[in-house]
């Protein structure tokens, strides 16, 4: 089966939703695709224990009212099957989608770095724990340590607290001086300042990072380095994430230029590839406000509403400055490169220890010699860690981009052998 649309938008977070709403006025046929079961992306995630977000409800209502926008949730991109054509899969079907223009709004993921004990059940990402809680993971009465870096630590701790957990410690790797400099700039973004005050927690510890998770079959304690001191904190969960990394792999695989770990775009959110736009955190980490403005600019620009797009550039600049500030003050301490020991698992899919990878000259060599990055996640976790720890560029994707069903793969195979119309 094949469908054609004028505009395909990949990712239905703040950027993708804003792009679809902006573009919808044109009357063009628009498809909005996301692998999550509902729209909203990372921040406006739906679920049993998720709060309601007025901004998201507003965009959802506008999308529902736009007859020319079709939403495909729980839908993944499996492969590129031609120029301007992708193979999609949902739990029931797979189909090809042809597009005239594409807006990539694939967002960002957490940087998850390996340390001894990080494979123990009970250890999750920081945003990861927040996402799991929104989906209904029970944490009432549990002792939680949050660690890593970035504003997400406070947001995650707040979600855990609201769900009845007890926060034992929030370990932020950035120094007190850096955090103070960040805080002093916040009045320029009053909403962000208010949020920081609301979310602040007395267990917040600057210049602290996780050293080891301890436990037998499950995490039971965490060792944290606070300046020069080492402390051990008993806990039931450790939520640890070292900031965000743009999801650039799909853009890179399609042929868009990537620089400084982000999709390169111009003032109208156009990538280096004709007919392909990108917006939101896949073009650099900047929070949901920047993602929404960029999404709207891309949506307007893609359907030729250039005046509407240009009218938003001042707003984008305002939020871009905030993004620059975040980047500057939460930069990772090079000391974190010594988090894993030689026998710490780096590649969780294939159980490859860090030592077996670090002794190689490049990611390619490491893959050849150790199976690192060859598993189900295709290096989205260990490749990102290797990027931080060893300075290696992230790997490109191979089809299928995510583990896919056999019928979808046959579909793709039939196409590449130039069979006429492949069936589902």
């Amino acid at each position, binding site marked *: 089966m094949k469908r054609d649309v004028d505009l395909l938008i990949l990712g239905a977070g703040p950027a993708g939703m804003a792009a679809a709403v902006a573009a919808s006025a044109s009357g063009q046929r628009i498809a909005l695709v996301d692998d999550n079961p509902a729209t909203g992306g990372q921040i406006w995630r739906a679920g049993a224990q998720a709060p309601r977000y007025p901004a998201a409800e507003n965009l959802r209502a506008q999308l529902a009212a736009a007859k020319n926008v079709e939403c495909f949730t729980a839908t993944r991109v499996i492969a590129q099957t031609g120029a301007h054509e992708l193979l999609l899969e949902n739990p029931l079907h797979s189909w090809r989608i042809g597009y005239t223009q594409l807006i990539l709004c694939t967002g960002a993921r957490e940087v998850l770095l390996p340390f001894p004990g990080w494979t123990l059940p009970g250890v999750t990402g920081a945003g990861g724990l927040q996402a799991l809680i929104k*989906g209904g993971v*029970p944490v009432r009465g549990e002792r939680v340590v949050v660690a890593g870096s970035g504003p997400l630590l406070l947001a995650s701790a707040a979600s855990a607290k609201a769900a009845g957990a007890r926060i034992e410690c929030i370990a932020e790797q950035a120094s007190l001086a850096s955090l103070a400099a960040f805080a002093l700039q916040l009045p320029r973004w009053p909403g962000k300042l208010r949020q920081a005050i609301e979310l602040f927690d007395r267990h917040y510890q600057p210049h602290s990072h996780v050293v080891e998770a301890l436990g037998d079959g499950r995490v039971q304690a965490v060792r944290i380095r606070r300046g020069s001191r080492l402390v051990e904190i008993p806990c039931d969960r450790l939520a640890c994430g070292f900031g965000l990394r743009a999801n650039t792999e799909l853009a890179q695989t399609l042929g868009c230029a990537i620089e400084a770990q982000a999709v390169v775009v111009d003032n109208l959110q156009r990538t280096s590839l004709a007919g392909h736009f990108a917006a939101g955190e896949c073009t650099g980490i900047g929070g949901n406000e920047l993602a929404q403005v960029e999404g709207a600019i891309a949506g307007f620009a893609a359907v030729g509403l250039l005046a509407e797009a240009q009218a938003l550039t001042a707003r984008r600049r305002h939020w871009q400055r905030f993004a620059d500030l975040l980047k500057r003050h939460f930069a990772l301490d090079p000391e974190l490169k010594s988090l894993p020991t030689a026998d710490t698992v780096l590649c969780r899919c294939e*159980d490859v220890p860090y030592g077996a990878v670090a002794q190689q000259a490049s990611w390619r060599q490491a893959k050849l010699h150790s199976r690192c990055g060859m598993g189900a996640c295709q290096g989205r*976790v260990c490749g990102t860690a290797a990027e931080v720890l060893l300075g290696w560029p992230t790997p490109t994707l191979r089809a299928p981009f995510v583990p896919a069903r056999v019928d979808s793969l046959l579909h793709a195979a039939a196409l590449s052998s130039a069979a006429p119309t492949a069936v589902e």
Partner: protein
Amino acid sequence: MSSAIELHINGQLLRVTPGTSVAAALYLAGDGSSRTAVGGQRRAPLCGMGICQECRVTIDGQRRLACQTPCTAGMQVESQP
């Protein structure tokens, strides 16, 4: 609030509120673990957002990500032994 959803996790009957993910159901029904790694360790959901693939389980005969799948009535979920 709409009524509870009934599903099976490793053969055990579980009732959850609508909107509950299969990842949450694994915790509600047991220790939350999803699979056994190559080296024999139990593993549980890590990223919560469809990236790490640690939460893969079998749902009605298909391999799916527990963190990106909401529970639906009658679902049969098997974690990897």
